[in-house]
């Protein structure tokens, strides 16, 4: 019974992630694209919680759904405010991208299959206290670099976006 529920939850999250990703890739409506991105990011956060990474799931929701997605919506509103009617996304010819994306995905799945077959997710993971010890211990350099990157990004955003509109 527990296995059925676990498998059902996995495939429910997978369905959400794939539908969201498909909407981002295929829809012509720019607001639906943003909505699809939100669904996919929420499904990813659900996956993180599914594997026992509660803090990571919260970080995903706060940073991506609460931050990046709102940023995307603001960018859409700022950029498309002068265009007449409902904004639509254009796409190029589809045959070559389909072949490239499907081929690369199949190749990756084929190459990763042997490694994944050896692994069984256990759903056991460390909590925030253990993560903080990791970030301020062995991963201190990456943690500091990420902080510096955020500071640089902030400066770049102010420099690039702070000018007057023409």
């Amino acid at each position, binding site marked *: 019974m527990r296995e059925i529920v676990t498998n059902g939850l*996995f*495939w429910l999250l997978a369905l959400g*992630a*794939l539908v*969201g*990703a498909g909407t*981002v*890739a*295929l829809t012509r409506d720019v607001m639906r694209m943003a909505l699809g*991105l939100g669904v*996919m*990011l929420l499904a*990813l956060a659900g996956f*993180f919680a599914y*594997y026992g*990474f509660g803090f*990571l799931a919260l*970080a995903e929701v706060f*940073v991506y759904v609460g*931050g990046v997605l709102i*940023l*995307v919506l603001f*960018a859409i509103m700022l*950029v*498309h405010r002068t265009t007449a009617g409902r904004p639509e*996304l*254009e*796409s*190029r010819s589809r045959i070559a991208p389909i072949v*490239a*994306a*499907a081929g*690369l*995905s199949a190749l*990756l*799945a084929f190459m*990763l*299959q042997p490694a*994944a*077959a050896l*692994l*069984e*997710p*256990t759903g*056991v*993971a*460390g909590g925030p206290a253990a*993560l903080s010890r*990791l*970030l301020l211990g062995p*991963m201190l350099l990456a*943690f500091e670099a990420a902080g510096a*990157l*955020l500071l640089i*990004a902030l400066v*770049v*955003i102010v420099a*690039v*976006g702070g000018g007057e509109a*023409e």
Partner: protein
Amino acid sequence: MSLVLVSCAIFGLGLYGTLVRRDIIGILASIEVMLGGPQLLLVGLGASIDHSAGSALNAQGIALVIIVVAAAEAAVGLALVVAVARRTRSTRLDDLTEVKG
């Protein structure tokens, strides 16, 4: 195995969107989708490998760094989009030919 398939499918959909879109915002959103696939695989496999070696924690730490880097990338990218749209009144890649050789 199903985790690998789902991750690769998400990555493939993101790649397709990146290749097919003409609008910069659409491309940025597709890149975020592309990042989601490997991130999911990293976390899923990190929860599977020997926990005594701290692999689950390492996967969590690396995934957290990926989230930060992706957030910074999206923020800078969207700031550039807004700046470009102010200048050219368009976000279509085909209209951005100023630095074309």
